[in-house]
Each structure stands twice: as structure tokens, then as C-alpha cells.
């Protein structure tokens, strides 16, 4: 197991490196306009341009430029915004990370629990009305824009039904977990549900399919011949084995979520996370902030994937020593 974690970590480092190179190339080596002009923002004065050129070593060879950028990002952490003059980028990002984490982790728990419950129920009662319902939920889940769903939720909870059914819903925003756990959960409840709603359907559908496939396996026949109860066969054998592919998919979706849907959800619910920071900086093309956000978010995604892979190995004994 230790060997496996070691190898997985090495792979993650390699991916991180290539992603950082890719980001660097996109921002600094795209043919066309002078990268200094891009970084300095619109209508920058010549002095600022000179400063940028020097700081990022734009007059020096590409490998050195890459090194300088990494240094600004991760070692010195002194990347500054040129739109909000002097604002340090990295501290802003680090401040925003817990918000994003709170959002994503809570949503992931809800969607996995819902997905597993609904999927298992549908597999146990296949051929009933649950089947088409699950199918519909899954399709709708991949078809609705998450930010739009968030807006509709806001419309209902903050405006239309706010005086009645949803009078207990707090205004948009975020309260830190350490400040008040109750308020933290209350503020995040609808963002969580919005994100989870889209994924729970797909996962229920996938879980159902995997379980039905597992139920056709030889080991289920053995389990039945052992005289186990149907319930035990379904949960301890079929579901347990179905978790393996589901978890590997979860790793991919979790990454996509952090770097995608969560970003949009934050914007809609006014949560000051990395996504909101990215969105705001996109509005005025504040390149250093965008670059920092992309880099940190990508790193986080890769780490999350690595963690999921280790979890996967814990679930599947065959992977560990492979």
C-alpha cells in the first residue's frame, strides 16, 4: 500500500508539472500580443510594462521565465494584481480556498449518499417506476446548466417564496465554519443541494447499472448458494463491488467540479471562493489573478484525484499490488 501511495504521488507530481508548463505556455508563449501588455491589464503605462517585463523575465529565455513564474506563484508568493494595484494574489486565493472546499466537500457528500441510496433502491426494485425516474434524473442532471439552476433556486428562496416557505433562508453569502458552524451549514445548504441535485441523478443511474451488472456475476451466485439474505447479497457483495468503478468516476467528476461547476455555483450564490475570485478577475481581465487561480485550482484537482485513487486502492485489493 505504501508503495502504491508513493507511486501515485510521483505520478501526481508529474501531472502537476506538466499542467504548470501548459498554463505557462498558454499565458506567456501564445503568439500574438506582448505578454507584458496582457499581464499589466488594459491601458497600462510604459513604466508598468517595463516593470512587468523585468519581474517575469520576459526578455530572458523561456525556461528561466518558467522558473520565475513558479517562484512568484509558489515560493515568493508575491504575484500582484495590476488592476487593483498592489493587491497580492496568493493570499487572496488562500483565503478563498476554505470556502470552495466547504462547498465542494458538502456537495460531494450529499450527492454520493443520495446517489448510492437511490441507485441501490432502483437496483433492488428494477422494473418499477423508479427506473424511468432515475433515468430522467440522470439525463436532466447532465443537461441543466448548474449556474442557471442556482439562479432559479435563488429566485425561489430569496425572492418569490422568501416571505413564506423559505423565510428561514439567510441572505446570500458565506459564514466561516469556525465562526458559527450552524450558520456555515445554513448558508451553504442551497449551494450544496444545487450542486448535489445535478450529480445525484447521474450517480444513482451509474450505481444502479453497476449493481445490476454485479448481480449477474458468479460471486453473487455463490453468495446466494451460501444462503445469505438478499439484502446482504445486495449490499455486502453487489454494492461493495460496484463502489470500485463508481469511486474512480467520482475522482474525475470531483476534479471537474472543483474546477468547473463549483466555480459557477460560487458566483451565483455569492460565495467568496476561488471560483468567485476567478469570475471577478475575468470581468476586468486581471491576468495575474486568473493565472494564480487556475494554477491553484488545477493543483487542487490533481491532488484530489490522487487522494481518490488511494481511496480506490483501499477499496480494491487487486489494485494495491498491481
Amino acid at each position, binding site marked *: 500500500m505504501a508503495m502504491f501511495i508513493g507511486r501515485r504521488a510521483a505520478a501526481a507530481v508529474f501531472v502537476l508539472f506538466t499542467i504548470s508548463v501548459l498554463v505557462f505556455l498558454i499565458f506567456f508563449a501564445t503568439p500574438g500580443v506582448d505578454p507584458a501588455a496582457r499581464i499589466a491589464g488594459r491601458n497600462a503605462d510604459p513604466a508598468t510594462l517595463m516593470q512587468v517585463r523585468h519581474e517575469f523575465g520576459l526578455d530572458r529565455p523561456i525556461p528561466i521565465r518558467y522558473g520565475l513564474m513558479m517562484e512568484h506563484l509558489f515560493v515568493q508568493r508575491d504575484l500582484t494584481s495590476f488592476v487593483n494595484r498592489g493587491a497580492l494574489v496568493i493570499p487572496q486565493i488562500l483565503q478563498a480556498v476554505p470556502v470552495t472546499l466547504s462547498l465542494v466537500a458538502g456537495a460531494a457528500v450529499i450527492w454520493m449518499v443520495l446517489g448510492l441510496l437511490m441507485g441501490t433502491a432502483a437496483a433492488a426494485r428494477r422494473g418499477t417506476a423508479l427506473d424511468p425516474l432515475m433515468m430522467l434524473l440522470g439525463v436532466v442532471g447532465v443537461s441543466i446548466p448548474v449556474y442557471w439552476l442556482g439562479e432559479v433556486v435563488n429566485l425561489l428562496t430569496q425572492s418569490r417564496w422568501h416571505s413564506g416557505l423559505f423565510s428561514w433562508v439567510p441572505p446570500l453569502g458565506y459564514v466561516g465554519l469556525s465562526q458559527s458552524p450552524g450558520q456555515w451549514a445554513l448558508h451553504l445548504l442551497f449551494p450544496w443541494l444545487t450542486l448535489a441535485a445535478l450529480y445525484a441523478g447521474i450517480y444513482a443511474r451509474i450505481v444502479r447499472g453497476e449493481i445490476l451488472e454485479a448481480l449477474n456475476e458468479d*460471486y453473487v*451466485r*455463490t453468495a446466494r*448458494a*451460501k*444462503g*445469505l439474505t438478499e439484502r446482504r447479497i445486495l449490499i455486502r457483495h453487489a454494492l461493495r463491488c460496484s463502489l470500485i468503478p463508481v469511486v474512480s468516476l467520482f475522482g474525475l467528476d470531483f476534479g471537474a467540479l472543483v474546477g468547473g461547476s463549483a466555480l459557477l455555483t460560487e458566483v451565483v450564490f455569492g460565495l467568496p471562493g476561488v471560483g468567485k475570485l476567478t469570475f471577478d478577475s475575468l470581468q476586468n481581465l486581471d491576468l495575474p489573478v486568473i493565472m494564480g487561480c487556475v494554477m491553484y485550482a488545477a493543483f487542487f484537482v490533481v491532488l484530489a484525484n490522487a487522494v481518490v485513487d488511494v481511496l480506490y486502492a483501499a*477499496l*480494491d485489493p*487487486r489494485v494495491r499490488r498491481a
Partner: protein
Amino acid sequence: MPESSLVRETVRGAGAAGPESLLDVRDLTVSFRTRQGVVRAVDGLSFSLAPGEVLGIVGESGSGKSVSVMSLLGLIRDPNARVEGQALFRGRDLVAMRDKDLRPLRGREIAMIFQDPMTAMTPVYTVGWQIAEQIRAHDDVSKRVAHERAVELLDEVGIPDPRRRVGDFPHEFSGGMRQRAVIAMALANNPSLLIADEPTTALDVTTQAQILDLMRRLRVEHGSSIILITHDMGVVSDIADQVLVMYAGRAAEQGPKKDVFHRPRHPYTWGLLDSVPRPRAERVRRLPTIPGSPASPLDVAPGCPFAPRCRMRHERCDERPELAGGPAHVDACWLPRDRRQELRREVVEAAVAEGDPGDLTEHGAPLDASTPPAPEQGP
């Protein structure tokens, strides 16, 4: 119908002890609804089994061997399947039982092991965990006790260093070891009947012999009855007391092993026996084969199901033959019983002499068109 009642009598006779039998299967039929209509995978199978006895069920793949025994334990979950007939196990009818009542019997009274040991165990649990699960499904013992018992069982089936191997996952076992572990699991609750569905087919020859050895020993030590399903006549001759030869979901011939092996009566049994190489027999240039391919359950001949492949086929075969010829040894064939051994020799000689044995049956011509064997005058 006098004929069928007579059949029933003889069949009961075929299974050795009548009243004290452990399992008494009568007229078992398993049918599946398909797009092409209702398909009978097992058609009117009857046999009985005394305590401590070994029954070998032989037949080519697709002959309904597995389906018949799986239907006994309610292991056929296909909603389109229908099981009919009667299977009295210690006087209780397994076919009529609800799943809820059948479950306590599975694994405890009747254990089953399957063909492919590679996929028979849940990949994510250790072998010991799975054996302990089997024990605790029926016995109210602690996890510790169950674990200890699992070690003992692995030791008993000949797994070296069982205390260490009990914590291994199935994929860490070799095929033969896995089958031993599956057997250990099946024996965990001392079942009175063990059903083994092609337990050696997926294994290499040396391991096959060891597993058969193990089963023979277990029969002596645990006193269990065994139903052994196989397509290998050699395996049956090794271990069985009673033999049931199946073709296209029906019994072609059944009886005590020595009768079936020494005086086989059904042309299909001849084919099965003669296609096994015998080391001490005189050398023949080529082994005779059974021409054609096994009958598809979708397309069983209306008369004798074996007729399309039979070298002794004649007009009578358009009518379905019933099992007859008892008391202990019965067969479903229209050929005259007193001339069977002679006819068998003819068939073998012809099959060996023929360049292409499959050719004749393609045209449906009987072996000896000039002198068709006299049809039997009914039982």
C-alpha cells in the same frame, strides 16, 4: 397413462433406495420464455439420491445439467424462467418452497460449488472472511470462532500454511487453491448434500485429480451425498455410484455406474464412452466422435432428441422414447434392448472406419440402410 406411471416406478428404482432417499426429484421441468417462444432447458427429469451416494450427471454443454441443479436451490433468477415438478429433499418440496424458506437450506443442508473458481468468490474480501461469512450465515458463532474454523477448513482441504493464507484475497490464490477454498466454504456447515457443477473443468489435469481426491475423501469423512455435474466420463467413472446421462434437457440413460459403464444402452452414451481414450484398450487409428453438434434448446427434434445425430436412427425415432428397461438401469431409446451391445460394436467400427463421421448424418442417412434395426415393441 400406464406408460408414464411405469416410467416413474423404474426411475425411482434407478435411484437406489426409495423411501430413505435424501433427494427425490420427479418430473423436473425448467422452461424459459424467449422471443422465439417457450424453451425447455430441462424436460421431465427424475432421479433420486440416497444419503452418502454420489450421482454423476453427464452431458455435453447445453444439455441442461446445470440448470436442473440450480433450479433445485432456486438459483435461477431469470424472471422468464419457470420451474415445475417436484424435488423432495427430506420430504420437503424444494420447487414449491418460497425463497425465504429455501434460504436456510442453502449452504447449510445443500451446498453448491461452481465451475469457475476464478470468479466464484467476491474479489474484495479475503478468503477467510468469505468462509467465516458462510459459517455465520447459519451458525450463531462469534467472528473469532468462525475465523478459527475457516483456518481449520482451509487446512482440511489441503491449503498449505492456512493460518497465513486465510488472510489472502482470492486473486492471490491459484486456480486450484481457489477451488479448494470454494470447497472449504461449501463444507463449512457440514451440508448433507453437495452439488458440484463441473468443479474440475477449469483446472489443469493434476489439479483436477487432486480436487477429485479431495471430494472422495470428504464423502467418506463428512458422509455427504454428492451430485457431480461434468461432461467428462472419466471423472464420473472415478467417483460416481449412480450415473445420469442427459441430452437436450432429458435423461437419455440412467442407472448404477457399473451398469451404465459396462452395458451402456443409449447410442449417446456409447458416443460419450467411446470418445474417451482408454490406455489399455487396443489402439485404434482415430477416436470415434459423435457427429453433429449438441441440440440447441431452441430447436429440439420433436421425436427422440438425439435422432438427428444418431447412426441408428429409424422411423420409430420420430416418436419420443420414454425411459424404460428398468428396474435400476433405464434408457430412452427405441432400439431392441437385447441387441444393443452388438449394435454398439457396429457403430464404433463404422465411426472409426469412416473418413468423415460428420458427413453421414449431414444427409440424415442411418448407418445401415439395408437392414434397419428392428424397432422395439414398446416397453
